[in-house]
């Protein structure tokens, strides 16, 4: 426990910001370049996790537990979002027999 606490000492906050923005960018690239709806939702999860980690790092940096409580709320929100999103994907697949994002073009009416 003490060694774990000592292990993190010395990592600058800037490196956390840089690391989380790299992960967030990977998520954005995934949303922009893939066509499978499920993989697009996974990229959104990746972005949510990057933000969660950055919130936790700032919370540990400033000694305020409110940031970690907020991460807890974001996780509850992500669970709800995934449940509804996957239900929508299953319904779209039943109607169109594909999970291609272009199949949703017909929503344009």
């Amino acid at each position, binding site marked *: 426990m003490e060694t*774990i606490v000592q*292990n*993190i*000492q*010395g*990592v*600058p*906050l*800037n*490196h956390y*910001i*840089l*690391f989380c*923005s*790299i*992960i*967030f*960018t*990977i998520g*954005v*690239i*995934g949303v*922009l*370049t*893939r*066509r*499978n709806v*499920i*993989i697009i*939702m*996974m*990229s959104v999860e*990746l972005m949510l*996790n990057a933000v*969660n*980690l950055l919130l*936790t*790092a700032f*919370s*540990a*940096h400033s*000694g*305020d*537990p409110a940031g*970690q*409580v907020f991460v*807890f*709320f974001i996780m*509850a*929100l992500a*669970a*709800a979002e995934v*449940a*509804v999103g*996957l*239900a929508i994907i*299953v*319904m779209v697949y039943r*109607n169109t027999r594909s*999970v291609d994002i272009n199949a949703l073009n017909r929503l344009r009416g």
Partner: protein
Amino acid sequence: MSVFYFVAFLSIFFALMTIFTKNPVHSVLYLVITFFTFTIHYILLNAQFLAVVNFIVYMGAIMVLFLFVLMLLNLNKDTEPLKSNLVKFMGVVAGACLLLTVAGSLRLMEVSNPIVLKNPDIGLVGSLGKVLFSDFLLPFEISSILLLTAMVGAVLLAKNESKKA
């Protein structure tokens, strides 16, 4: 200190593999490994409650849900039609622009002081629970309504269609 950089490298590597793997099932498995490295990050920050919640909720529940849907729709082969190379290139360029903007704005700041855990037991279950049930009691109750709404919505969405078909 070097543990952080090693785990950060692993997270970036597996996140890239998640995006660029053709097979969706392999993609889900790489994402599980990425979330595991995030759990290690939480442990390194001594946020033990978040580490456990991340482990159970993300790796246990959400990823199993993704895997279930993939298997249910029988998509475990690479049937995905690829986007044109131009769209892929534009996507990567847009992402690189975002990263460059953030990194460039970081350069304006001086090297920040390293993270020092002033209050090491901030992320333990006890102290977080005290904050959650005193300051954040109303949002906590409202989030239960959110979860109930999501559950009702998911059941309705999935059930309605099967009755018709």
